[in-house]
């Protein structure tokens, strides 16, 4: 296979061509309430071709590897047709030719753990939830995705690499009267099965929160100073800023390119934001991206100033900026797109207590509950929160949505904690068609934002 694919891209009369071929193994186990609803373990395969010719580009996904030769030829013809629709040719930044193998080496390899043991571990956590009062139902899922990938390009790169990501995650659903509340939990997020053991205490804390939320009330709608916990702050930086660091989104958006020139001041000096696939153990950790480029640490914001951006070879050429190794595809059905790896706010000097003491009328928001951005507008939920009055934490609040405009909100980050922590579940949706990427890590310390809009009653 390796030699055959390498020959196909080498022989194609294109400016550049690559093929990625994958064999993927997935295991999923799911409980819904008491029911073991899903046990499935299976393999799929497929590939993806990219061709640049005459400054135009075409891509193709395929299921049948026997068809790859004719698919590459068709893509070449499409790329030439695409070139006619452009006044400026697409170019690729120079990248080193890479040959070699990049396997993963987990402490406890999930592929060696019996399916029975995975089910048993999940059942254990699920039972812990279900035996508590007020619990209406649970959702608990074990998810394992292992991918062996082969990448060849017309420049001579031949790379075999592995991705492996496992996790246990789910939701606790509580109900009293007509009130239903949901709180999430997640363990794992890397290749090591041993990270899934001994998490009872954390899970029970989550169940306690889901019960207390039944007595909480929604926040009053308005504009407030807020503290975000690390989970919520990480989602904020991922959703609101991180996506605008991805150069493929900016490439053809002149207004944002202007707003996001390197050297632009985006926040106060305390603000530092980094994307780094090379730190091990997080959902977005990897050696090599799906364009055959090694992942590197990129400092996106340094002392409040925009200093870096995430790139493909195409966008790096377009922007005249260094390669970052952020081109990734969820699986063979998709073309790679520019994505964050592990994005995080670097730790600062403030303590949580100082942040609370600095707020007269505001909220402490905890636990991310999904988010969405469109350009510089963001909105996302928190799973729960607390009122802050006169420098003191007060009663619990629920059903919280916050929204705002990125640039003013970044400038409004006025305190950053020293307690950096990373989430254990990756997750990010991007692209048309949508690619849901589990291998997307995020982290942050507690942060204080002086003004955000909260929805509520």
């Amino acid at each position, binding site marked *: 296979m390796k030699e055959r694919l390498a020959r196909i891209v080498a022989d194609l009369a294109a400016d550049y061509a690559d093929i990625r071929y994958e064999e993927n193994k997935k295991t999923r186990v799911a409980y819904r309430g008491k029911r073991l609803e899903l046990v*499935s373990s299976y393999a799929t395969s*497929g590939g993806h071709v990219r061709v640049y010719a005459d400054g135009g580009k075409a891509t193709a996904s395929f299921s049948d590897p026997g068809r790859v030769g004719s698919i590459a030829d068709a893509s070449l013809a499409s790329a030439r047709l695409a070139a006619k629709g452009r006044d400026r040719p697409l170019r690729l930044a120079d990248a080193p030719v890479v040959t070699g193998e990049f396997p993963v080496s987990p402490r406890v390899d999930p592929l060696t753990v019996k399916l029975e043991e995975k089910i048993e571990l999940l059942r254990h956590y699920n039972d812990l939830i279900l035996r508590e009062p007020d619990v*209406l139902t649970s959702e608990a899922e074990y998810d394992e995705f292992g991918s062996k990938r082969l990448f060849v390009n017309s420049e001579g790169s031949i790379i075999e690499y592995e991705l492996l990501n496992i996790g246990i995650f789910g939701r606790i659903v509580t109900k009293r009267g007509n009130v239903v509340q949901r709180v999430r939990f997640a363990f794992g997020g890397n290749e090591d099965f041993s990270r899934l053991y001994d998490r009872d205490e954390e899970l029970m804390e989550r169940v306690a929160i889901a019960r207390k939320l039944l007595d909480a009330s929604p926040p009053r*709608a308005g504009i407030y100073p807020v503290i975000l916990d690390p989970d919520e702050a990480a989602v904020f930086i991922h959703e609101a800023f991180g996506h605008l660091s991805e150069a493929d989104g900016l490439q053809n958006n002149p207004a944002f390119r202007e707003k996001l020139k390197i050297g632009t001041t985006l926040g106060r000096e305390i603000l530092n934001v980094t994307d780094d696939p090379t730190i091990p153990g997080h959902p977005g950790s990897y050696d090599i991206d799906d364009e055959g480029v090694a992942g590197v640490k990129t400092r996106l914001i340094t002392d409040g100033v925009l200093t870096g951006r995430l790139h493909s070879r195409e966008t790096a050429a377009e922007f005249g900026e260094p390669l970052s190794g952020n081109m990734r595809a969820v699986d063979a059905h998709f073309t790679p797109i520019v994505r964050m790896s592990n994005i995080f706010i670097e730790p600062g000097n403030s303590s949580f207590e100082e942040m609370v003491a600095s707020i007269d009328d505001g909220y402490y928001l905890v636990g991310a509950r999904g988010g969405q951005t469109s350009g510089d507008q963001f909105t996302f939920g928190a799973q729960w929160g607390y009122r802050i009055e006169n420098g003191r934490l007060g009663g619990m609040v629920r059903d919280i949505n916050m929204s705002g*405009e990125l640039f003013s909100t970044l400038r409004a980050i006025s305190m950053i904690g020293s307690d950096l922590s990373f989430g254990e579940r990756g997750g990010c949706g991007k692209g048309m068609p949508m690619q849901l990427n589990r291998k997307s890590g995020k982290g942050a310390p507690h942060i204080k934002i002086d003004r955000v809009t909260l929805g509520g009653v």
Partner: protein
Amino acid sequence: MHELIEKARRSVDGAELYWKRDHTISVRYENYRLQGMTEDELSSVALRVIAGARLGATYGVNPEEPGLIEQAKQAARFGDEAGFSFAGKADYESVENYDKRSEALTSADLVALCERVKERIAEERPEIPLFIVAGATKRDLVVETTAGAAGRDTSTRVTLGFGAPIKGAGIGVYKSDASVSPLDLDPALIDEFLEWYGWTENKSTPKTGRLPIILAPEAAYLFLLPLAAGLSGEAVEKGTSPLIDKIGERIVSERLTVIDDPLRDGDPGSRPFDDEGVPCRRRPLLDAGVLTDYLTDLRTGAALGRPSTGNGLKRELFGGGTETRPNPWPVNITVEPGDTPYREMISSLDEGLLVTGGMGFHSGNYPQGEFAVQAIGFHIKNGKVVGRLDRTMISGNIYKDFKDVAAVSRERRLGPGGMLPGGPVPYILVDSLRVAGE
């Protein structure tokens, strides 16, 4: 009958083959330039079996690959009690969901369509970074069971979307169209895009309080998705649906009639059978505001002691696909038109919002009917649009706030697909929703 089913018959109690083959071409323009083309040939298979009364599933690329039955049997060893049987033999209604002209479309045809959109918009708005996406898919779907279901369907879908971000706003204006047949340039769609884009020059933030809201077809999911979540037999069975014991009750305004209509000819979401091989049927869900039925698939139907309504789809809030377990969803949800021209809705309002989208929907408590989103759309004052909404959140509960609907438009358009693909829906004027602005 596929030989995999014949083979399965000899070693398990029941089996269901789901086999999907998509051939898709698409072209994408960004900032008026052709950015790239794709051509995908993808095949995927799901095999579910019942063995020893337990359910097991496995997935693969094509039905010929070895080991599928063994893998599914292995999964069934750990599987839940099936509690239902796979779909039996049935006659499927015919529906026009295939056009051979769509199958014959080439990338060059899609480029030609995009070029026409491009030229028309460039006449008026050469300065905006216009993007255009056009695609055509031919799908061969097979759903066959050992119980005799033999669904084979070939469908086509042609899609066109275009839009542009608004300078300095971070959001954009987007329009889309879809059809079973090749799409032509729809002048009305272009005109509305240009009109909406023109409305974005000024921004405007309403005062915090309650205001009337016109929900455009693009934003209909703010109402329909919480409704679909409540109608799902899954939520009814779990006890989380707010619609339990409400059949026969008026739950929203009598102006709202919602029909799941998988057999509407020419709609790209139409189909003769669901992903479990159960025949699809036209089914009123809300009849003049009165709840008439829940949606079930085989599994939730059996749990509720009733048959599947033919709504078992491999769909999730974001995407789904062959590896997704069937769940009850509307197949092709539509809302009946009213008699008010949409422009009269706008001119009738002293102050209100025309909502064309919302951000943050999925982080809200929508399964309970609630929504709280950052509103995308326009601010109306004295019967006229005064600008695009800025820093505006709307929130509410469809089972409270949609009890009072002032008007439903006579115009209908396909919603935007995405989280809730469906058929045509009108503009809906809701008496008032909570608005958080200035």
